[in-house]
């Protein structure tokens, strides 16, 4: 299980190859890449700056990955999230999951993204022609994460 927070871009092909790493138990790889759009809430976006909470971010991502491994029958998982200033079409996040079969790999990948969107301490600030603005959280993201409940929290 690997989580990384970095300013540098990533090569999804190389990352996925490393995740599989000759593991013959793997029959399925599911991956998601989030990228920067040039329009958000009807405004043109020229740059997107991602801020995080150093010290907590990796810990939060590791907790989300650990939760995925308890919920789904998967072999390995990788989360890479970029921070700093990005431009439209840039890659933001990579989530990749390996498993024996596609069902659990797909589900775990979606779960990881849904939880990351609502629990990992990242914030987006957009630059638009009208100025800079913090991106608002979306109720739809909370709803997406809520679909994975229960099980009820045990902590």
């Amino acid at each position, binding site marked *: 299980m690997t989580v990384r927070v970095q300013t540098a871009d990533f090569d999804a092909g190389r990352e996925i190859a490393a995740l599989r790493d000759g593991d013959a138990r793997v029959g399925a790889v599911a991956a998601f890449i*989030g990228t920067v759009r040039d329009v958000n809430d009807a405004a043109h976006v020229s740059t997107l700056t*991602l*801020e*995080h*909470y150093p*010290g*907590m971010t990796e*810990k*939060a991502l590791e907790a989300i990955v650990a939760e995925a491994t308890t919920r789904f029958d998967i072999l390995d998982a990788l989360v890479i*999230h970029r921070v700093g200033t990005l431009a439209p079409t840039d890659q*933001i*996040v990579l989530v990749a999951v390996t498993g024996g079969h596609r069902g659990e790999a797909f589900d775990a990948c979606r779960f990881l*993204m849904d939880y*990351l*969107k*609502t*629990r*990992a*301490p*990242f*914030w*987006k*600030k957009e630059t638009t022609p009208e100025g800079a603005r*913090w*991106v*608002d*959280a979306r109720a739809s993201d909370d709803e997406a994460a809520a679909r994975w409940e229960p099980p009820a*929290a045990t902590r």
Partner: protein
Amino acid sequence: MPDSRSSADVTVHLVYLARLREAFGRAGEALTLSGGDATVAAVIALLRTRGGAYAAELAAGRAVRIAVNHTLVGGVDSAVRDGDEVALLPPVTGG
């Protein structure tokens, strides 16, 4: 706990993130709680008494989550201890 610790001051290190950092004009500060009510709720209540951006951003109904020592807490009744890092997080928007 009864009164054995009530006289002890508790100093926490506050961290303000993203929108809150900009609204407050600072990345963080030390805050001392006295009177024995060392909880997340007491931190929020003390900050609100400053008025201005603090009262506005931390008003009831505003979505602010709290992390103590890098772990999100379940509610404002959570205790804080001397030396804790208490972070105020706007709703997250990563991914």
